[in-house]
């Protein structure tokens, strides 16, 4: 275990950034998001949550991955995928780390998604225990322990000191290089874990009942009449899907240039009316159907296909950010309460 006084935290960021690219929560024009750390940027690890999740660093909103160039009858295929070397992410919360497990099951299964895998293989993740969980947090429901978030290096910020506990060899190798750190013992961190656990136990959503959400209830849940009421105010925007750490649907877009085509992968949203548009027709014709799809996917379809793992991590972003205050907690409570 290592430590550094929080007042000297810029030294840690500086030293990390001199070793490799460092990404962390950066405040820009009043909004906190994961961005590359550079001197002069406003880093902030005290605020609980970024707007967009850490997903953005592994599965970015837009990726330009191939160009097709034409010359007469000849077509060149040019690989434009970005190849990352090792990089660090600092300040990842337990819920966001767990979301990578959810994404792994999508992108690392055959056929492996090379763009995602490259980033996963090269990331060194510094997690951060949640000193002040919010009333909208419900990670405990998904057996996530925000007091001990693990990752490659587990960090705790308590009483003006940042503690760093390497978990993996990758994490230890990087931490051992850092000269700004001092050796530390684990008493403060152990105490901190207990305090956080007590705070989490007292959160209003920490005991949500998920028992009804399982594959055998699929049809019954699908047909529940409450979906109408639950989705009534849904605007059909993509806020929930884009800020969600586990939403992973994407679209592939081609753009014509003078002598070829540029191909992009970009986030898409099942909340959008065109999402399921096919040649013949669109099978999801109204917003209730789209709304139902999103939550059935997170709570029933995905876990049925992935050994019971829910594709929600209880980060509470949708609880905070839905323009009309619709969210997965309301769905769980309404449908879970038979």
């Amino acid at each position, binding site marked *: 275990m290592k430590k550094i006084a929080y007042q000297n935290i810029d030294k840690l960021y500086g030293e990390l950034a001199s070793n490799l690219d460092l990404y962390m929560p950066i405040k*820009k*024009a*009043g*909004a906190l*998001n994961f961005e590359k750390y550079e001197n002069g940027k406003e880093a902030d690890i005290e605020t609980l949550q970024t*707007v*967009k999740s850490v997903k953005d660093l592994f599965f970015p*909103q*837009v990726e*330009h991955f191939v160009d097709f160039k034409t010359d007469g009858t000849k077509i060149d295929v040019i690989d434009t995928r970005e190849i990352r070397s090792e990089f660090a992410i600092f300040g990842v919360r337990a819920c966001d780390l767990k979301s990578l497990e959810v994404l792994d099951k999508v992108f690392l299964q055959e056929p492996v998604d090379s763009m995602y895998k490259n980033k996963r293989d090269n990331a060194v993740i510094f997690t951060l225990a949640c000193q002040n969980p*919010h*009333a909208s947090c419900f990670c405990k429901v998904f057996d996530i322990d925000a007091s001990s978030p693990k990752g490659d290096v587990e960090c705790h910020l308590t009483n003006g000191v940042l503690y760093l506990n390497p978990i993996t060899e990758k994490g230890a190798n990087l931490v051992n290089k850092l000269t700004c750190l001092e050796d530390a013992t684990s008493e403060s961190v152990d105490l901190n874990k207990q305090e956080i656990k007590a705070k989490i136990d007292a959160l*209003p*959503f920490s005991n949500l009942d998920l028992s009804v959400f399982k594959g055998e209830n699929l049809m019954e849940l699908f047909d529940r009449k409450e979906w109408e*009421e639950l989705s*009534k*105010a849904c*605007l*059909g*925007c*993509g*806020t929930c*899907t*884009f*800020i969600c750490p586990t939403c992973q649907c994407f*679209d592939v*877009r081609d*753009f014509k240039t003078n002598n070829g085509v540029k191909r*992009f*992968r*970009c*986030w*898409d*949203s099942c909340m*959008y*009316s*065109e999402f399921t*548009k096919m040649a013949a027709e669109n099978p999801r014709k109204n917003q209730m159907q789209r709304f139902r799809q999103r939550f059935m996917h997170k709570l029933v379809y995905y876990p049925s296909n992935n050994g019971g793992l829910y594709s929600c991590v209880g980060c509470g972003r949708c*609880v905070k*950010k839905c*323009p*009309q*205050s*619709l*969210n997965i*907690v*309301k769905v769980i*409570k309404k449908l879970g309460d038979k």
Partner: protein
Amino acid sequence: MQRLEVAFLEKAKELLSSGQVNRVLAYKKGEFCYDVSPAVFYSVEELENAVYNGFCGANLSKYLIQESKKEGKVAVFLKPCDTYSFNQLIKEHRVNRENVYVVGIECQGKFSIEKFYKTGVGFVASVQEDLDSVLVNGETKIDRNAVKLERCLVCKKQHVVYDELLVINEKKDGDLDRFEMVKKLEAMTADERFAFWKEQLSKCIRCNACRNVCPACTCTKCVFDNDDSQISSKANADSFEEKLFHIIRAFHVAGRCTDCGECSRVCPQNIPLHLLNRKYISDINEFYGEFEAGKDIAQKGPLTNYTTGDIEPNDFKGGNK
């Protein structure tokens, strides 16, 4: 203030039980005091979950595009700013006025929960409202203005369309200059202004919340959703590309935007989108004389009406280049 909520519930029950309407569009309780959602109530029993308080910020007018086309009459509780949007929708033939019973309801300004957090009050379990202050969790008194949405500091105050009014106390404050920030932006050099918008609009994740909530955005199919249009976006070459979407949208609603502020309320990245619209409102006022969209449906919109005295493109040089 709690007296108003009681009056609201009584009115809603009366409208339903008398058969005057067959449903009520209002707000329903959430899990906390602050996460209320728009909802339609079909019976007096369902109204148990209805609520009217400082967190009922959502503009209900847009829902009336769909609701007013259904069978039977719908009652709706509209705040002063909501009535401007509704009026504009009437003018544009987007709602069936005769299917809507409008109760103009009192509003003392709606809240931003994020502003509560900024005061350091922590978890907001309960809010008791007074005309000029709020009591949080029964112990912390906060100035009401400190937790209001920006739009509520520049309030419209009056209902411009209604079948009846439910107002116990008039609203007194809300007189700040809504063009203050527009003037600041105008006073900047072109480069400074560009830097301001670049920083703000680069945050955009193109969730379309601003467009979907906007009561002036009523196209059955938005050009940006048309996959065949080649401009449906999603894949941007750089993070500032969304400026195009926002500028086009602001132009499209220019002269029709009532400045209801919903775009900025719903933006997950807190982009002050209303400033784009206000710039156009301010320009329209300057070029064509004072005009407020939604205020008077008999008045012709300056951008959709031609007079020989209209300003010519060359009459104005802006930009501070």
